[in-house]
Each structure stands twice: as C-alpha cells, then as structure tokens.
C-alpha cells in the first residue's frame, strides 16, 4: 500500500501492478485478481470509478490506497454515472486520449446500479464498464443478488427443508447490456487472464460504451479452498455454466468453445460449499435443473 491523497507518487517500477499489493482482500480473492488484470491491461492513462463493495473496501482504507491511478468511489449504485460525468468532463476539456473505466460487483451492476448502467450504455459514452461477478453481495456477507446462480445457497437464499437455495435464475446481464446495441459486450474470467486482458485492450480501442462481465470466484462466499480459485473458475466455463463470449451490436461474434473439454456440472458444484445441499437424494431433480441450465447455455451460444 502507498499513502493516498495529497502525496505525489514516485515513478513506479514496471513490474508493479496498478492495483498494487498490500491491500486487504482475502486469500484467493477472484475479484482482486480480476481487477488487477483489468487495470494492468488498461494501463496508467486511465481514470477509474468504482462502486461500493469489497473491491473499494479492501483497497482504500484511509489514509492508504492500493490504486496507482486516478480512482474514485462515490456510492454503491452510481459508478456508471460517475464515469459518465468523468467522460463528459474530459470530452469538454478536449482530453480524448484518456481511458475511463467504471466497475462494480454483480449487485452494484445488475441490481441496484442497473439504471445508471442502462443510461450510460444508451448514451453510448466512451466508457468501459467492468462487472466483477462473484454471484452474491459478498461485502455484506454473501446475500443473494440478481446474478446468484439457480440453487446456490447464500445467507438470504439458504437451503432448508423447504428450499434448495436461490430459486431465481441468474439474470442475463450480458444480454441486457448487449440489447442496448453497444459496440462491444463480452464475458471473461480470471481463469483465462490473457483472454481477459485482450478483451480489455480491445474494448478500450473501440469508441463508445463497452461492457465486460468477469467471472470471479469468491472462496469465502462460494465456500471453496482459496487455492482453488482458478480451478473453480475454469470449471464454470468447461461445464457451460459461465459462457465466454463476445458480442458486437447485439450479435455474438466470438465464443470460447468447450468441445471435448466439457465437464459435468457436478465437477464444478462439488468443489463449493454453496452447492453442497444439491448432493442428496432429495435434490436429484434440482441437480438436473442445473444440468439443463448448462446445456441451454451451450446450445444458445453454440459452445460444443
């Protein structure tokens, strides 16, 4: 960590990340890794607006900051609008060569911040929005969000004698964003860092509004061993539960095929305590429903 406000930064050594070490994220945090990759792909000529959530809390406890770039946090649901204001300010001052990134978690993006995000995408302002999707409100203690997968157990969608966990399907956030007819909308995962960084760089070269949903496992909330973050993230892709795709102007332009690497959903679910309740005799039908979700994803995007 470095001292934050009112101190001029030293020229950093090249190997130091723009989201530097020493922050307070949990061991194995997918979001910290995802944000680091996004920032390093974007480079220092970037201004960042961040929603309230783990990412902001673990990186900016005053008087320290882990951000070696101009960075702002305002509220939970407004990073898209704050970034829109930054972009408008830069545009008005003739500074057209600075990247603007807005970012937030799945709750801050797909639930409470969806209005501001829609406004940004509709106006097609030159901003890249990055959603770090760890599939629940982790900062407040693992409550369900609109991006929590079907049948996942969270602290507000617990499993019990009458429930198998979250009873709502994961919101199609990529589809919602792409439907604004923006030039670029994609998914990525910390499992494949080069792909993620390539997408950030590609997006930042395209004028207009861009959206990137990054799948980031949360060992604490998903209840998996912290050293399994990458393995869990890979299995989300190879089971078909988190498709990796690119869309331009609401058309799918590129997908990561699964092909013969396809794995049964159980391989993914078994590593995580949030799905433990699905491995009982009474849950067989529910497990089948998760298989069907994966199959539907694979068919829809042609991932085979």
């Amino acid at each position, binding site marked *: 960590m470095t001292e934050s406000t009112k101190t001029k930064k030293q020229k950093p050594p090249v190997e130091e990340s723009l989201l530097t070490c020493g922050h307070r994220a949990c061991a194995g945090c997918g979001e910290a890794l995802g944000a680091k990759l996004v920032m390093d792909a974007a480079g*220092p000529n970037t201004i960042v607006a961040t929603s309230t959530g783990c990412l*902001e809390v673990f990186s900016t*406890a*005053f008087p320290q900051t882990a951000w070696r770039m101009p960075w702002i946090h*305002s*509220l939970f649901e407004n990073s898209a609008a704050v970034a829109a*204001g930054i972009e408008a*300010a830069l545009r008005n001052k003739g500074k057209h060569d600075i990247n603007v990134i807005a970012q937030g978690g799945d709750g801050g993006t797909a639930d409470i911040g969806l209005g501001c995000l829609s*406004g940004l995408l509709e106006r097609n302002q030159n901003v890249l929005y990055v959603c770090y999707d760890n599939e629940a409100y982790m900062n407040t203690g693992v409550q369900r969000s609109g991006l929590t997968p079907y049948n996942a157990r969270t602290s507000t969608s617990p499993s019990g004698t009458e429930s198998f966990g979250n009873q709502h399907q994961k919101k199609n956030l990529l589809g919602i964003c792409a439907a604004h007819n923006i030039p670029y909308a994609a998914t990525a995962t910390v499992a494949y860092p080069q792909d993620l960084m390539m997408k950030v760089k590609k997006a930042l070269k395209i004028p207009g509004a861009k959206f990137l949903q990054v799948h980031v496992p949360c060992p604490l909330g998903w209840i998996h061993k912290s050293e399994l973050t990458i393995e869990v993230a890979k299995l989300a892709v190879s089971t078909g539960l988190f498709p990796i795709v690119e869309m331009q102007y609401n058309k799918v332009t590129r997908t990561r095929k699964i092909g013969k690497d396809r794995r049964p959903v159980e391989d993914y679910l078994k590593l995580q305590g949030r799905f433990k309740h699905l491995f009982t005799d009474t849950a067989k039908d529910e497990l089948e429903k998760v298989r069907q979700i994966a199959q539907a994803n694979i068919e829809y995007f042609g991932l085979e």
Partner: protein
Amino acid sequence: MKMMIEGSMGVAYMVMRCRPNVIAAYPITPQTHIVEDLSQFKADGELSGEFINVESEFGAASVVLGAQAAGARAYSATTSQGLLLMGEVLFNMAGMRLPVVITVANRAISAPISIWNDHSDAMVMRDSGWIMLFAEDNQEAADMHPQAYKIGENPEIMLPVMINMDGFILTHAVETVDIPSQKEVDEFLPPYKPEEYLNVENPLTFGNLAEPQWYMETRYKLQETQEDAKALIEKIADEYKGKFGRYHGGLIDTYRMDDAERVFVAMGSIIGTLKDVVDDLRARGEKVGILKIRSFRPFPKEKIREVCGHVKELLVLEKAISFGLGGVLQEELRSTFYGQKHQPKVLGFVLGLGGRDIPPKSLIKLYEVSKGKEISNEFVDLRPEVAPKGSLVTL
C-alpha cells in the same frame, strides 16, 4: 441586458454565463423550463458545456459528481421527488467536497402528489452539508448562480451550493431580469481550477473508506467549513454589488427594520408579498419590518442577533414542517436566541404548503390577531372544516 423573461430562463442564461463544462438533468415539474432552455442553448451552439440526458435524478447528480471530481464545473437542477432521489448523492458530494451548483425549483413532496410550491423538499436536505441559499425574486435567483460557484469553489470552502427558488411562483413568472454580459461574468467568476482532481498526471484516490479513527474528523471539517462560509457569502454578495450594482442581501437581508418592533421572518418569494404588506402596515403606523433569511445553511445566527437588538417579536412564516416537531425555521430562530440577553418572542406560522395561495389580507390578519399571543406551528388559511378551534386565520 434587460430581458422580459421567465424566471427559469433567467437562471438558464446565468448558468450559461457561468460556463459549466457539464450539465446533467432529468425533467421534473416545475424545474423543466430551466433545463429545456439550457438544452436549446446547446442545440443553438451557444452553450459550450456538455448536456447529458440521464435516466433519473439520481443519475443526474452522479454524473455531475463525476464531472466535478474530474476537474469540471458542473450544474444540475431539480425539485421535490427529484431532489429526494438525488439525496444520497447530495450527501456524498458534500462529504467529497465537490462544489457542484444545483438549482431547486422548490415544490411540495408526495403523498398526496402536488406539483406546487413549498419548501418541504429543501428542508429534507438541510443536514446534507450543502450551502443552501433562497432567492426572493427572479433577478436574485439569476444573480445567485455566479455567486454560488464563487462561494463553493473557494479553496477554503469546497462545498456544493443549492440555490432555492420557489417553483412556479418564480420559475414560471415573467419579469424583467438583467442578464450581464459574458465578459462581465467572466471578470467576476474565474475558471474552476481545483487543487486536486482525477488526473492521470497525479493519480489520487477519492472516496476512501474512513474507519472510525478518521470519519469524525471529516464531519468536524464540514461543520467548521460551514461556519467559515458565513464570512465568504457576505463578502461575495458585496463583491457582486461592486461589480454589477445589485445587492439582494448577504446571509440575510432586512426591510424597514430600523425601528421595527415586530418583524416577519421568511425565505423565498413570500418576501416580495411581505414588502407590500409591511408598507401597508407602516402606513397605518405599525412598527414592522422583514428579516429575510437568504442563507439557510450556514444558518446566520450571529447576523440575526445583530439586527434584532431592538425587536420584540419575530413572526416566522414558513412553507415547511418537520412532522412531530413543527416549523423548522421557527425552531432555528428560537435556538438562535436561547440563552441570549435579548430574546425576542418567536411566533411560528406554517403556510403556503402545496401551493396554497398566500394573499396579503391573510398576512395582515395574522399580524393583527397574533398580537400578545404565544404561537407555535399555527397553520394559516386552513379550510374551516379541518382547522382546529381557535385558529387565527382560516380560508
């Protein structure tokens, strides 16, 4: 240049003269004409700032927050429900010390839904940390904008400023408004050059997490700065007078108060009505005057005490109420004099809610019948079927 225009257009012209880099707004009656006029200026190439259409007032406030943090001068306007929807962002802007200026076309709050004027909306934001100014007429509303930017952007202050003008009564009233030239306003209001902003050359972090060992100090500084702003508000009103020859008061203004024993206290457009009422009463030999509260936050306790040395009674007229307590301004006045050597009696009246008309005859009547009485939270001009027994002035 003198123009016969709507209050909203006077504000729009003056906002343009302040050269905001970014404007973001969402339509809500009776604020709409301000942002429609600004949109037209943009469409006609007169306005150099960006005009961002947003999906809500929450979005509008967040966009101007981001713009201001990026070193831009930013502006928005709203009212009522829109101000409430902005609320979370307004508190945030004050905490982040971003000197945005917004105009509030004051309007009642739902339910029941009412698009008409009162001050309930502004009163909700009184603890937000914003500087809150109230305009008496359209000229003052227009003139307040360059003053507001100059107050808020002062490096020692760095606070957002809310300019309140009565919805419809001012926003939609056509009056003569003198709009200074761009050159004159430029001479008064220099470009916004913040010491710190989002800048790739000097990367800083804004909006940190403050743990318990730090948070209280941010609150202390906000309170301290509000106090510091008092002198600056006065100074800038004087400067404006020197430059443009117009003075609408500093923290307060007074009317025929020199020997006044009973004094009306109010904010906003009702001051204009009261001036006629006071002239009538003076013609009958009454020693009466007006204390206009121009700055509600910071609240000018010292200045009020200073001009009320000889005053026996304050008749506080307000267009808002804090349910379960009573009139807000009335209680602020009582606390202003509590424990002081000279304590004028404070009489509190609530009137004009949701656009209820305030005719001079009602004000004259309440002045007459309230003599010698102890009065708090007296609703003026209630319908007789609802008014409690002993109401002083009913419809």
